[in-house]
């Protein structure tokens, strides 16, 4: 026990003496949290919108005004002819072009079907999809209002029956994007920092040669490993705390679930990451190698974690692979506990899987750590 305590003591001294490393450990992650949560948004704003109005009537102008009123569109360009709008699209000046056909108003009154031309720059397919939804919504609303107007004008006794779905967005009522992102990005920070630090730590002793000297001593393998990794466990928990405080203060993210449960899960989760770090450490000779391997895994884990893209939309084989991704479980749990207020029984499957993962990872890491070369 005395040995473990002294190693922990030594590790902390070394961490806090490393003037270059301290800001990286504590300040950069928080900057990332603040910047990423604000910048990495799925919402698409300021879509530059152009139109070709071949009708030039009261109704066509009313439609354009609807777009003008929307916060998503930036109605800036009017094109006299489709040729010019095509050119503007090619030069990237507009993202969306709406073409209103001739006799738009007249045909509407005649109750004819009318086709509006919508051209969307679809180089970014995801953005184009979202833009399409916005446009469809605006046109639908416009159409509905128009139908009511027409019914009134024609003095018809038959009232139109409108069936409308009223969506309620549970757990994130206002569809606030940050509420969804902040818990996920917090996960990233805790994972990245603890994996990189633990991965590079034992390799560093290899590089400077102290590991060889330590290996000749009678120190027990598990004493050394616990002593080396415990400080990073503490740092991981510390990062979670700072991140949660910022999430509450800056982003006002709801925290419905129990904090204890979140800390309990995180304490096991970090063990998985530390085991991975140690495993990487054992199979590399330099910090540079360790860093590259750690990056490789982190990038795959992040992109397949459901943080930025939903797991449900991945192909079957990829969904199967995500079962091996610890970040996925952590992201799920953070969102469940923070936004939904899930309890222990709700997160039990993920908790058990993570615990199993921690046991396997650490067994492998300790087994592959050899005191001989």
């Amino acid at each position, binding site marked *: 026990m*005395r040995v473990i305590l002294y190693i922990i003591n030594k590790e902390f001294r*070394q961490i806090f003496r490393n003037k270059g490393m301290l800001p990286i450990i504590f300040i950069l992650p928080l900057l990332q949290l603040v910047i990423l949560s604000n910048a990495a948004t799925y919402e698409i704003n300021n879509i530059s919108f152009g139109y070709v109005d071949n009708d030039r009537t009261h109704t066509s102008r009313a439609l354009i005004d609807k777009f003008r009123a929307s916060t998503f569109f930036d109605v800036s360009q009017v094109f006299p002819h489709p040729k010019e709008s095509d050119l503007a699209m090619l030069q990237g000046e507009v993202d969306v072009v709406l073409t209103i056909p001739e006799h738009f108003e007249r045909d509407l009154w005649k109750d004819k079907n009318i086709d509006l031309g919508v051209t969307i720059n679809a180089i970014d397919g995801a953005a184009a999809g979202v833009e399409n939804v916005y446009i469809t919504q605006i046109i639908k609303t416009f159409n509905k209002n128009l139908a009511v107007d027409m019914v009134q004008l024609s003095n018809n006794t038959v009232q139109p029956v409108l069936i409308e779905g009223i969506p309620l967005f549970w757990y994130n009522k206002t569809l606030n994007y940050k509420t969804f992102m902040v818990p996920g990005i917090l996960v990233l920070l805790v994972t990245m920092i603890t994996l990189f630090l633990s991965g590079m730590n034992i390799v560093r002793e290899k590089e*400077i040669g102290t590991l060889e*000297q*330590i*290996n*000749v*001593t009678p120190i027990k393998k598990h004493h050394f490993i616990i002593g080396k990794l415990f400080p990073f466990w503490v740092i991981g928990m510390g990062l979670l705390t700072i991140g949660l405080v910022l999430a509450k203060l800056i982003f006002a993210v709801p925290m419905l679930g129990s904090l204890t449960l979140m800390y309990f899960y995180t304490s096991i989760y970090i063990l998985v990451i530390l085991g991975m770090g140690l495993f990487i450490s054992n199979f590399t000779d330099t910090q540079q190698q360790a860093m590259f391997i750690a990056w490789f895994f982190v990038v795959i884990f992040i992109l397949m974690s459901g943080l930025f893209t939903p797991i449900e939309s991945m192909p079957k084989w990829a969904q199967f692979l995500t079962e091996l991704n610890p970040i996925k479980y952590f992201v799920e749990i953070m969102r469940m506990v923070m936004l939904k207020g899930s309890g222990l029984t709700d997160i039990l499957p993920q908790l058990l899987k993570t615990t199993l993962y921690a046991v396997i990872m650490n067994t492998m890491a300790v087994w592959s750590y050899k005191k*001989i070369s």
Partner: protein
Amino acid sequence: MSIRIDHISKSYGKVNALDDISIQVHQGELFGLIGPDGAGKTTLFRILTTLLLPDQGSASVAGYDIIADFKAIRKQVGYMPGRFSLYQDLTVEENLRFFATIFGTTIAENYDLIRDIYVQIEPFKNRRAGKLSGGMKQKLALSCALIHKPKVLFLDEPTTGVDPVSRKEFWEMLKRLQDKGITILVSTPYMDEAALCDRIALIQDGRILEIDTPKAIVEHYPKPIFDVGAHNTYLLIEKLNAYAHKHSVFPFGEYIHYTDQRDGFDPLELRAYLKKEGLQNIHIERTKATIEDTFMELAKQ
């Protein structure tokens, strides 16, 4: 017998790092492994300190087998690797306390043993190890290797890259440790340090050339040896090598060490030859063989 090495072999792929090595080191002996870089000295140290398994052969340290009782050996030996392995960002005292702790002891408990060495660096005990000079780092590394009172001390090229004054001091420290009954196995590429050991093993390309006391090794030198000097050393070496009867020609300090093939060698004959070849200020004098001469002679065979 403090260290017993019995027909140890180790190869890395096709390279034979150690080839059938057998050495016996007595209790309390200062034993030197002398050989150039790549001779296999570090490999042998790593095997004896249980960091590496031999391919063949057996060995024991302080009475314990290096394979069966490796855990016991780790309690009994101190090891100072070739590169001083200290934490550069910890202070002198923290480094020492760290090694004391992982050996399950304290500085106070074994202070007697390291006092002579540690007092020299104690004034800097709050300085980071990375900021120490080469000689001080070496003293700290030795203190760290001694802090648990080892019975056997392994020093792998401890004086490489250290200034001559510190080297001399270091060997004096080793002598004092030896007086305290510690067996010391030290490797060095410096032949002048070999003379300070009780016994030495000359090692090259993983093979032992000879094991004996430095004095006996020098006496074994088979031929009379001569210091030869002239105004132009480069030309002198060239001409000596061209001489029909030469056995060996090695530069040694300001002179060339020369031996002849014939038993009845007459220095005057060589002088005449060199004069004819245009050399001036010729100096030829009988001298004593050194360990380096012996090493070169043995390595030639």
